[in-house]
């Protein structure tokens, strides 16, 4: 059964139809790629999935339940979390607090409990500290837990953003160009990390990426967007040999 599924999804800005009749389906523990030329509507797709934009038509279902019309934070709480094309960390906040913030909605203690430092506050803060550190360890960031996020090098900022997205316990993780700006070594490392995330956290991953070797090397299923429509889908092999895809990327017939 599909974890995340869209049907006839579309959005128009003014008269411009940025996405049209998009059907995608992501299975459990699947790593899926969303590719396409610049301006094809990939990030718009992410924005629809997380209610940054509201679709003008179609449906989005997470585990069979519609999430259209839910607020962004509710969608995150329901199990879709994302990273951003241009990293959006809480810059003047420590690395570990970046992760703890994403765990906020899983914590229970009240405002008063926080002010008066009740046992519930102590217990939950201790738990969240341990969980956040565990998560940072996966990304080898635990030694920098107390650094300000803005002081991390670029590659580690990307990792921290993924760690923060994982902290919300998602069922589906959306990664918007995770390898952008990384050198080949870092990219290879990232591929391993993504596979490790999938296995360890048992989640599905949908990623946008321009680096074809990255996409082909890691994705089990690939969707190709061009001018707001899905023009092809299939395995890496199928996509590589699809004439429509080649035309879309090389331009013209």
């Amino acid at each position, binding site marked *: 059964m599909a974890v995340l599924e869209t049907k006839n999804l579309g959005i128009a800005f003014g008269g411009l139809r940025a996405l049209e009749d998009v059907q995608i389906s992501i299975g459990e523990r699947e790593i899926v790629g969303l590719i396409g030329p610049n301006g094809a509507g990939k990030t718009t797709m992410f924005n629809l999935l997380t209610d940054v934009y509201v679709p003008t038509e179609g449906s989005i279902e997470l585990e069979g339940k519609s999430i259209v019309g839910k607020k*962004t934070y509710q969608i995150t709480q329901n199990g879709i979390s994302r990273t951003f094309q241009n990293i959006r960390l809480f810059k003047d906040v420590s690395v570990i607090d970046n992760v703890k913030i994403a765990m906020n909605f899983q914590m229970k203690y009240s405002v008063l409990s*926080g002010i008066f430092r009740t046992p519930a506050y102590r217990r939950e*803060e201790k738990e969240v500290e341990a969980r956040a550190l565990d998560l940072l360890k996966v990304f080898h960031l635990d030694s920098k837990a107390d650094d300000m996020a803005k002081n991390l090098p670029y590659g580690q900022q990307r990792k921290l953003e993924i760690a923060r997205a994982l902290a919300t316990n998602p069922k589906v993780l959306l990664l918007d160009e995770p390898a952008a700006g990384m050198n080949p070594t870092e990219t290879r490392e990232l591929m391993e990390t993504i596979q490790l995330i999938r296995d360890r956290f048992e989640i599905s991953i949908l990623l946008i990426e321009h680096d074809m070797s990255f996409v082909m090397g890691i994705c089990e299923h690939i969707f190709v967007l061009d001018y707001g429509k899905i023009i092809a889908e299939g395995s890496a092999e199928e996509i590589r040999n699809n004439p429509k895809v080649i035309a879309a990327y090389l331009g013209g017939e």
Partner: protein
Amino acid sequence: MKTKKWIPNVIILVLVLALYVVLSVLISANIINPYYSGILTMVCINVILAVSLNLATGFLGQLVLGHAGFMSVGAYAASLFTMYSGLPQIISFPIALLVGGLVAVVFGVIIGVPALRLKGDYLAILTLGFGEIIRVLILAVPFTGGAAGLSGIPLLTTFTYVFILAILTVGIIFAFIHSRHGRAVIAIREDEIAAEAAGINTTYYKLLAFVMAAFFAGVAGGLYAHHIGVLDPGKFNFNYSVEILIMVVLGGMGSITGSVIAAVVLTLLPEALRGFSEYRMLIYSIILICVMLFKPSGLLGQYEFSIARIFKRLTHKKADAEKEA
């Protein structure tokens, strides 16, 4: 060597108590005369105002231009309560302060709900409008004494009261900021879209922080009213809101320590420089612009004074010394 966590807390408690005892002894011995103890009271009130405004402006990142307006509704509500509730003063005063805070909360919700559901700077303009409008409303309703002001408010604000409430405000807001709720508030300041994507209900937390700030401003208003004894709607004007804002900006947006220091200094300084009073707002405005241009984080940035840190450093030094020996 393991640092005992409770030791810094005890040190802070002892320091605060010592400060209180010293000041009260000086006041009762008349070494600090009533004029100066009045200034001390204003220092404490301004500490409450600055620290609470910092919650909304420094930690949440929303500009609030009507803090004096919230103070004024609190002041009027609290005064009317002590004057007409008929309860003995010893009981009615603390309740009145609470009432002042809660009435400010009500106005905070009325302003905050329309402004904070939206992204953008609507809170700044709505609070600016509120600060101006509330004066008009106070003049228009029958029970506030109108333009002549409200007089005959019992003088119940003692040094002990303001001191304890200032310390409580600092403590509560500090603890709030260091809880999960405070982290959520700071996340919104850092990046509202990312905060929302991290599962934070941003509207709720924006409203929570803003309304908390309004509450303490209301309490401060109640203290002020029962310190001065008369309320004049003109006192809580835009300039007063700006004076509180400048304490926050200068001290450091996001530094409670900075707000406290700036509140103390900027309350005492004008007293010392009375000759310059007509230039005061002009100087303040230049300071505001210059701080934004050259050191937008304010003098202390987000630095907080921490006994724990000092304690750690000292004990580490000692441990190092012992190791060497």
